[in-house]
């Protein structure tokens, strides 16, 4: 007896378990594993590349190397105990995730947040966004081969971290928000440091422009590279600077206002070129926008409590129900879906991380680019791998 001659998979290769089949690699191509240990995948992302010479024929991101089951952890602990996890989902914009979690639970339980606490939240979240964008800027330039900018970025980041340390006590994985407010109030020391920082930044940004943004090599590397048109960006659910670089002025702070963002006057930078340079420019403009928000918030800081006196402490039982709460993180829309059955621990938590959607774009726009462009595109999406895997 012989097996049927026909190939049951019809030349397709794939995974019987996941039932995903696709055409296999051609004979004359090179399969290249970029990552999980590669300098420009920023962590443990693995991208499977099928290359023809230097050209990327197909790019397939492979996830899961740093999956830590944050959602499941949330379902095994009291509401307030989930805060330290948020700083570890996205270590670069920890406070936005803090806010997403705090906001979701506050929305569920109808908790009130004092005005001062809201201002403090705005200040430190925006400072954190500046921090995140600065690091992205440095690391992206590192991807593109310029080694020095990241050091300048860290010079400024150091100041922001010093300030945030005053409020949160930590330097990276902040967990300082609480239901109904924030853990610590800000003092005059913070305010004076913050003002000094705000004064310093315009000059620094000017230097960044001279050193990097205006540089002909950089422009050559980024302009016209990795074009994501509006529809594609929409189709993949891209958010944040990636979407705004594709000409869509969607910002959660504007579209679904939360906190007291409606009280501030700031620009939502949008660029219409859809390429890596547009995303770069969006982030550089956002740095300025964030700094202006911080300046306004510092000036208008109201008196009051930093946490509501009746805010729940420790383990408590919010009412049953489900909510969805979204905030604008440095990488895009951070969403928390929360279902409560009225017990001390959440029934179901789902985290929507922007990097996940943004990364999935790469498989499409990475096709047919040069390897160097693939690196530039991957960097321009500003991925934080722990956020993708959660």
């Amino acid at each position, binding site marked *: 007896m012989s097996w049927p001659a026909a190939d049951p998979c019809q030349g397709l290769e794939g995974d019987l378990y996941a039932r995903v089949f696709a055409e296999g690699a051609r004979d004359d191509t090179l399969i290249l594993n970029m990552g999980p240990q590669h300098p420009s995948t920023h962590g443990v992302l693995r991208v499977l590349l099928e290359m023809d010479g*230097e050209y990327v024929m197909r790019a397939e991101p492979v996830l899961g190397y740093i999956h830590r089951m944050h959602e499941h952890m949330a379902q095994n602990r009291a509401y307030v105990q989930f805060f330290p996890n948020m700083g570890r989902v996205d270590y670069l914009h920890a406070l936005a995730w803090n806010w997403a979690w705090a906001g979701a639970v506050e929305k569920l339980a109808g908790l009130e947040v004092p005005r001062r606490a809201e201002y403090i939240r705005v200040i430190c979240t925006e400072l954190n966004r500046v921090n995140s964008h600065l690091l992205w800027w440095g690391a992206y330039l590192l991807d593109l*081969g*310029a080694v*020095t900018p990241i050091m*300048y970025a860290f010079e400024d980041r150091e100041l922001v971290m010093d300030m945030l340390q005053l409020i949160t006590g930590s330097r990276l994985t902040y967990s300082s928000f609480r239901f109904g407010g924030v853990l610590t109030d800000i003092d005059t020391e913070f305010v004076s440091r913050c003002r000094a920082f705000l004064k310093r930044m315009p000059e620094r940004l000017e230097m960044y422009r001279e050193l990097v943004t205006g540089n002909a090599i950089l422009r050559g*590397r980024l302009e016209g590279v990795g074009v994501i048109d509006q529809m594609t960006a929409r189709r993949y659910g891209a958010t944040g600077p990636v979407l705004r670089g594709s000409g869509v002025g969607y910002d959660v702070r504007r579209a679904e206002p939360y906190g007291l963002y409606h009280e501030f006057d700031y620009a939502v930078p949008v660029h219409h070129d859809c390429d890596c340079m547009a995303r770069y420019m969006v982030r550089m403009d956002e740095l300025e926008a964030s700094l202006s928000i911080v300046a306004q918030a510092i000036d208008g800081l109201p008196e009051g409590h930093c946490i509501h006196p009746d805010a729940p402490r420790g383990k408590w039982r919010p009412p049953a129900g489900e909510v969805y709460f979204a905030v604008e993180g440095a990488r895009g829309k951070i969403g928390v879906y929360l279902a409560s059955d009225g017990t001390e621990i959440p029934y179901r938590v789902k985290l929507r991380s922007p990097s996940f959607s943004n990364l999935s774009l790469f498989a499409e726009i990475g096709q047919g680019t040069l390897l160097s462009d693939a690196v530039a595109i991957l960097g321009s999406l500003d991925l934080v791998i722990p956020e993708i895997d959660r």
Partner: protein
Amino acid sequence: MNGSSLAAVAPELLRLGVGLLALVGFIAANGMLLLYVERKVAGHVQRRPGPFEVGPHGLLQAFADAGKLVGKQLATPAGADGLLFWAAPLMAFMPVPLMFIAIPFGENLFGLQTNLGLVLILSFAGFNVLALCLAGWGSNNKWSLLGAARAVSQAVAYEIPLLLSVLAVALMCGSLDLRQLAGSQGGWPWQWNVAVQPLAFFIYFVCAVAETNRAPFDLAEAESELTAGVHTEYSGMGNGIFFLAEYANMIVVGCVATALFLGGSQGPFAPGPWWFLAKMYLLVTLVIFMRWTYPRVRFDQLLNLNWRWLMPLALVNLLATALAVKLAG
């Protein structure tokens, strides 16, 4: 072979032998020095001290690193072609002392007087690309292979405008002898060839940076794209020799530029080898500064720059020079 001919040959041979030995020492010392300078420049540009702990202000760091590199195991990756793999670093380094031999550091400080000095240097410089090619192929590593492919097309492309720009100067002076070329210029900057041939100097400089695989043209190494390109699999001294060769090549192109364009060992006062070295190190420092300033160009941009800008410009420059020489002569 009789005695008289031996006596006739011996001084020349002796000079060559001593010169070669001295040059190897010079190259090794320079490798150390440049490693230190590069790190210090990188450090200060980035507002940090650079190497600091080994010796006063980190002066001994390069020696410590050399010791470390020598002490490391030389691993040949599985599936690599051992012969080619280890031939590559040697091939990268061996031509280097030969290139130095024709360089006139001073009026009378040179290894070999030859009327084809320039051709000698340029032809031996071509070995470097062969070494990178072998290294990339022999490593049995896909990143290395990509790096080697880049290195080859880059080196081949940039050799042409380099030659053309050098040729313009040679045409002007009517010689290929570096000593004569250097000697034909005066002591003051406006008497140097760079004043007459600024475009040639610019083209030469860009091509030289590309030829030596320095940033922003370090595509063969391209750390953030190809991990370390052709050097990915080299450990210990294998890597060390590549580094030494890279620095030595930098010095060579700096020397040639000094001799051709910057008046060699002439200076406004007290001409001598120190002028030569000072100018050469200034150029090398500029190259180092560039590495810590610019992002890396993309591969096609690199080639475009060459074929669409440097090559035509060099050709035009050469033609104009030829015309001017003809008319003036």
